[in-house]
């Protein structure tokens, strides 16, 4: 019985969630269009779904690699650029074991900062904006997590999320 009610509640919730996401996206784009000099909205850490792609080796061989892919739309009144970004971090580096939460927070922080930098530069072609965004994010994230890399998509089989 409980699960039936749960199923009904889920069915009701699903369209509402979709509408909320659409409204949020529209609000975000409007906000960016209205205020070109100020970037509003930030990507939540949970948007980065890290998946292990290289297992950390045996105890004698540290390393490992996990990656997340996100399709991020950057917009302002000059235009919208949709960038496919892949974030890779080691499972372990010289300083730390890199848990998913740490990786997510660092990636989201670097993405927000990179978006501010790139949108603050004014109009540009979308391909140029994506290149600049990935370059900036790569620099910021590799400073926060030793060994991290940001690029366009290179790994097949990951499931990209979309933001907003």
């Amino acid at each position, binding site marked *: 019985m409980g699960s039936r009610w749960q199923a009904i509640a889920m069915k009701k919730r699903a369209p509402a969630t979709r509408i909320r996401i659409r409204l949020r996206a529209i609000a975000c784009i409007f906000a960016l269009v209205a205020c070109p000099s100020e970037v509003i909205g930030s990507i939540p850490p949970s948007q980065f779904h890290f998946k292990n792609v290289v297992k950390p*080796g045996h*105890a*004698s*061989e*540290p*390393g490992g*690699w996990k990656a997340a892919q996100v399709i991020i739309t950057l917009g302002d009144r000059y235009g919208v650029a949709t960038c*496919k970004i892949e974030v*890779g971090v*080691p499972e372990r*580096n*010289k*300083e730390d074991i890199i848990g998913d939460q740490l990786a997510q927070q660092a990636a989201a922080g670097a993405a927000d900062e990179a978006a501010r930098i790139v949108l603050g530069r004014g109009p540009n*072609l979308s*391909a*140029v904006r*994506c*290149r600049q965004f*990935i*370059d900036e994010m*790569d*620099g910021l994230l*590799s*400073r*926060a997590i*030793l*060994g991290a*890399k940001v*690029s*366009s998509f*290179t*790994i097949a089989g990951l499931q990209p999320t979309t933001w907003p």
Partner: protein
Amino acid sequence: MALTVPSTEELLRTVRRYYPAGLDLYEHEEEYRNSSETRALKEARQRAFDERGQAWLELKQGFIDRYGKDQVFDWTHFGLDACFHFRVYTPSSTRGNNVAAVLFVSVLVPIHIMFTVFERRVESGPLPAGVFMGLKPETEAITHELDREAGQRMQSVRIDWQLLQVAVPEISTNHRALGKATLADLLFTDTWR
């Protein structure tokens, strides 16, 4: 027979076989990824793994045995780079103040390069990595070991950083727009750190 460093012309001919000319990766992504050159690059990486992967593991194990498992990190990423990559941290490294000797071995040409990276963290946060291509006293001994072992096990020869500074303006990569790439970016990686 002693290995010799290929000429600049040979190196340029090589990279042109593995990267499409005149295509910006972000503007023409599909065309770039589906090009015969990109396919050739993927095949070269796979071949390197098949043919030299075991030698690479043995080289790495030697350093793990000598310096300890916590000091040696294999950060080879064939999806992104055209090289084997590992770093050996000096025994004097401390938390927030690390010094690494780094070895890159190209998968396109039998050449390798070593450099030193200082990774420092201050109270306000991490500093940008300090990358030095010349010899540094902190890593000199490890660098000589890396050079010797790369030559013996990977059958490669050390190349001078200056030789890699030749521009290849017709090629773009993830982090190099058209007009910005050099032989260093194409034979090894476009993220030097």
